[in-house]
């Protein structure tokens, strides 16, 4: 069982805890294939999805995960635009605690917002993605999918390609995969690579982290290619000149895929921009495990909710 109250990021999890989450998810995967997709594990628990940022897939995935465990799931879409003096995260935290929520899944555009909430609530906080910081359940479901296909999480070459600077998915995946001894190659336009990307992880794991601007170098003999979504508004800030030029250098085409290992799998956290970071025939092609990721998302989130809430009984 997880000893933490919250799940705020991958950086602070141990390998053993990650394996426990994934193993537990394995057993929950089966629930989703039953005709009656429900177990009573979290009956009487309240899970609140508190989303300060628009999201369909993550929110729905958490909602389904909670409901399949028989928790009561409430969705709150809070607009950050109304946040001003007097309406702070602290008030939100107190309100949710007063409603005796057991778990709050937080998605927020500000890095660190779930961490701030976690310090203020009795409820367990699950980070559903904060700014450009972490998106731990995404990295866990990615690891689940990789482990399913590759039967291991170590000694793999994983290329993560796209807007690394603004990506919480990239950061969480880097933390997770390097902890297990897989080599992660970060690849982006020089303008979309954060400074000191090589030091994103501590010195104990930095041997597993590589930085390049060449897609061919990143993809060569890769076991896993993970494409990141490109946000169009980055273009107006001149991170790159045009979508066409972006696709030329960092778009995933069939020809490029051929440089990877023959059994490469192609992942994407979604939603995909066809023709921007990934060609349609690749996204829909045989290497793509994009929909397996979505399926894994429910099982992994069931596992996280169970390990945070199920084992502690009524007290924490």
């Amino acid at each position, binding site marked *: 069982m997880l000893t933490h109250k919250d799940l705020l990021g991958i950086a602070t999890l141990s390998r053993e805890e990650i394996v426990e989450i994934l193993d537990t998810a394995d057993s929950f995967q089966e629930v989703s294939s039953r005709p009656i997709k429900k177990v009573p594990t979290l009956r009487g628990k309240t899970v609140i999805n508190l989303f300060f940022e628009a999201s369909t897939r993550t929110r729905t995935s958490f909602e389904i995960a909670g409901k399949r465990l028989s928790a009561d799931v409430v969705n709150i879409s809070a607009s950050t635009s109304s946040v001003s003096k007097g309406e702070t*995260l602290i008030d939100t935290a107190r309100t949710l605690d007063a409603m005796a929520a057991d778990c709050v899944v937080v998605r927020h555009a500000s890095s*660190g917002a779930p*961490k701030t909430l976690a310090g203020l609530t009795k409820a367990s906080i699950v980070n559903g993605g904060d700014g*450009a*910081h972490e998106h731990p359940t995404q990295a866990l479901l990615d690891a689940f999918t990789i482990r399913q296909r590759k039967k291991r999480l170590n000694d793999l070459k994983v290329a993560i390609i796209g807007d690394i600077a603004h990506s919480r998915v990239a950061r969480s995946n880097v933390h997770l995969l390097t902890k297990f001894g897989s080599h992660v190659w970060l690849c982006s336009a020089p303008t979309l690579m954060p400074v*000191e990307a090589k030091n994103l992880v501590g010195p104990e794991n930095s041997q597993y982290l590589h930085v390049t601007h060449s897609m061919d170098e990143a993809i060569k003999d890769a076991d896993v290619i993970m494409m990141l979504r490109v946000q169009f508004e980055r273009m107006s800030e001149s991170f790159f000149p045009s979508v066409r030029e972006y696709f030329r250098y960092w778009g995933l085409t069939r020809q490029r895929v051929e440089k990877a290992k023959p059994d490469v799998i192609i992942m994407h956290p979604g939603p995909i921009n066809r023709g921007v970071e990934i060609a349609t025939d690749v996204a829909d092609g045989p290497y793509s495990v994009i929909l397996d990721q979505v399926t894994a998302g429910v099982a992994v989130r069931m596992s996280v909710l169970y390990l945070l809430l199920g084992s502690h009984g009524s007290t924490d």
Partner: protein
Amino acid sequence: MDLLIRNGRLVDPGRKIDTVTDILVRDGKIRKIGQVDSQDIPVFDAAKLIVAPGFFDIHVHLREPGTEEAETIATGGQAAVAGGFTAVAAMPNTKPPNDNPSMTHYIVSEAKRSSPARVFPIGAISKDQKGETLAEIGEMYEAGIVGISDDGKPVMDAQLFRRALEYAQLFDLPVIQHCEDLHLSKGGVMHEGVHSTRLGLKGIPAAAESTMVSRDLILSQMTGGKYHVAHLSTRQAVEMVRQAKASGIRISAEVTPHHFTLTDAAVAEYDTNAKMNPPLRSEDDVAAVVAGIRDGTIDAIASDHAPHHINLKMLEFDRAPFGITGLETAVGLAFTRLQLPIERMIDMFSLNPQKIMKVAPWGIFEGSPADLTILDPARKWTFDVVKTRSKSRNSPFHGWELTGKAVATIVGGKVVHEEKRL
């Protein structure tokens, strides 16, 4: 109003004085230095304490008018004397800003009415601090400003900054720049480096400061203006200032206690009290700043006291305002972190600030105003933000154990602050 300061160690590096003596104060001025036989005069026992010329913090935000919920001239003045400062220079970014003589008059008269510390206003460089046209610098000078700055914002327009450097020479006013290229810093909330990458926060590169310092140095040389770098924070900027001084450009620089004490690692928990502008920099920058203090490249320590109401600091890190309070911790942090010879401490907190702002006369001599800071370099104390005199509590130094403190502050011969005796 008479006062006898007895048996203190008087240190005035400006006059090369370092001696244990009595000081007789009469009518707010120093009347006699030397042994005094007291009869019916109130005595301040300064045995084992250092008596220094008044400390002057040349970079504070008093928030009045416009943001009195965070600070007022009165409460900022109280925080100043509690921290050992007999005088402060107030930045003009109030609401509305101090960009005209009637605002300057208001600050001067309100300070006389309510502040235990002397308050010297700094005027805006540009009208409404918009960086477009010059403010009424001469008229504000007549009303009492001691420098000009658009602090909080840099002057991005090089032509306007050139003109400010030229025009301010009429009054021998320093032109104080908040060095930040707004294009490079856009959207940034902390130092750009490994920590911003790990935390997923948008960075402000060191180059945002140093590129502007380099531009300004060229303009200072060209105009002969009196240029002052506010809250310098990066290695490159320290090195450029050092070089410029060596080549004889009229320039001075200040540093804040937080920039020689903390690094960007302090942001780790998304603590909004570690958010300020310029941001906390890397270990290498801090080392360079400390070296710049030691070798005299940096002239003054100024707090950049920036009170903010707690409601604003309770926001998410990237939404919270920049700035921390600093008047009450500056001297303690300098003693604790720098351990400078006492003459250098007094230079950086008193004499150099006076030289930069040309506020005269300054120092301890017969006839000078009795503005004195009484120091106990051995005093151990813990900063408790709950007891702050400031209206705001946005300090990252709560609970810090420090060694060295200003234990009393005397302004115009009046003891305006005194710590409990141990």
